[in-house]
C-alpha cells in the first residue's frame, strides 16, 4: 500500500466522512442563515398621507404637538408603532409651516417641547433643540428631521406624507 498512489481504506473513509459531513453542513447551514435573517429582508414601506391637525389650531410661534399610530403586521402579530412631531408656524402664510419629527437624531428617544427652556429637550441624554430643530446642546449629530412633504386639505387639515421604514 505505502508508496502506491491508490487511496488507502483509511484515507477513503476520512475523505468520504469529510465530504458527506460538509454536504450535510451546507444543506442545513445555508437555509439556517436565511431562516435567521429573513425578517430583515422583508420589504415594508407603505406610503400614505397622515392628518396631523387643523391648520387653524396651530398658533404662530407655538409648536403644535401631534402623534399618530401605524399598525404593521410583524410575524404573527399586529404591532402598533407610535410616531409624533411638532408643527411650527412662523407666519400667516400657510406655506410657512415646518413639521418636525420628534425622534431625537442622537439615539431615537422622543423629544418634548419645553416652554420654560424654549427648546425641545430629550430625556435620554440631555439633547436640546431650538424651536426650528437646530441643535443647541448635547450629543445629537444633526438637527431634528423634517417631514418635507405636507399639504393642507380643503377642510383646513394639515397632512404629512409618511413612508414606513
Amino acid at each position, binding site marked *: 500500500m505505502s508508496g502506491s498512489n491508490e487511496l488507502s481504506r483509511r484515507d477513503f473513509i476520512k475523505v468520504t466522512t469529510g465530504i458527506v459531513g460538509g454536504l450535510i453542513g451546507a444543506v*442545513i447551514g445555508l*437555509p*439556517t442563515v*436565511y*431562516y*435567521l435573517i*429573513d*425578517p430583515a*429582508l422583508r420589504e415594508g414601506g407603505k406610503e400614505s398621507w397622515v392628518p396631523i391637525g387643523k391648520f387653524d389650531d396651530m398658533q404662530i410661534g407655538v409648536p403644535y404637538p401631534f402623534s399618530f399610530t401605524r399598525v404593521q403586521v410583524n*410575524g*404573527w*402579530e399586529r404591532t402598533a408603532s407610535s410616531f409624533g412631531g411638532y408643527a411650527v408656524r412662523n407666519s400667516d402664510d400657510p406655506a410657512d409651516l415646518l413639521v418636525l419629527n420628534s425622534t431625537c437624531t442622537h439615539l431615537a428617544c422622543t423629544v418634548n417641547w419645553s416652554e420654560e427652556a424654549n427648546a425641545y429637550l430629550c430625556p435620554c441624554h440631555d439633547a436640546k433643540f431650538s424651536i426650528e430643530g437646530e441643535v443647541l446642546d448635547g450629543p445629537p449629530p444633526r438637527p431634528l428631521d423634517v417631514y418635507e412633504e405636507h399639504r393642507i386639505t380643503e377642510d383646513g387639515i394639515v397632512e404629512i406624507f409618511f413612508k414606513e421604514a
Partner: protein
Amino acid sequence: MWKNIYLWLDERIGFNDLYANLLDRPEPKTTWWNTLGSASLFLFVMQGLTGIFLTVYYTPSPDHAYDSINYIMEGVAFGWLIRGIHHWGATLMVILVFIHMLRVFYTASFKYPRELTWLIGIGLFLATLGMGFTGYLLPWNQKSYWATVVGTQIAGTVPFIGEFTLKVLRGGPELSALTLQRFFSAHIWIIPAVLAALIGVHLFLIIKHGESHFPTKED
C-alpha cells in the same frame, strides 16, 4: 502564520493525543449495530441546533404558541425545514436510542465493567422520552393539548403521590399557561442540561472501557 497558530495550540492542547484517544481508539470487530450510539449523539446535536433556531421565532404562551409555529411553517424562509428536522429528528431519536439500548442488552455489553455506562444509558433513555413528552405540548394545538391532558392524568394515577405529581407537572390542577411555560423550560433548559451531563459521563466511560466484543458461541 496558520502553522504557528496551530503549533501554539497543539503545544497546549495536544491534538495528537486527542485524536488517538477519541477517534483512533482500538475497536473490536464491529458492525453497523455499533454505530447507533454515535447516531443518537448526532441526533442530539441536531435537535439541539434546530431547537435553538426554533426559539428565535417560537413563543411559549397560549396566546402566541400556535400562531408563532404557524408563522415558522409558512412565514419564515426555510422554517418548514428547521421545524421538520426537529419534528422528525425527535421521533427518530427515541427510536434510535431504544434500538441502541436493545443492542447493548442483546450483546450483553452492559456487563462488568460497563454497568455504570448502562445505568446512565437508562437515564439518557428516560430523559429522551422526557424531551419527547415536553416537546409535544409546545405547538399548543388540539392534539398536543389533549395528549398532555392524558399524559399528566396518567401520572396522576400513581398511588399516594399521584395528585401531587399531576399538580407539579401542570403547575396547578388544570392545564394552563403555567403548564406550557414549565414544559418549555423543561424542554429547552432542564432536560437538555441533564442530557448533556449524562452524555458526557457516558462518553467518558465508553472511551475509558472501549467497545465490548460481541459474545461468541463459546461465551
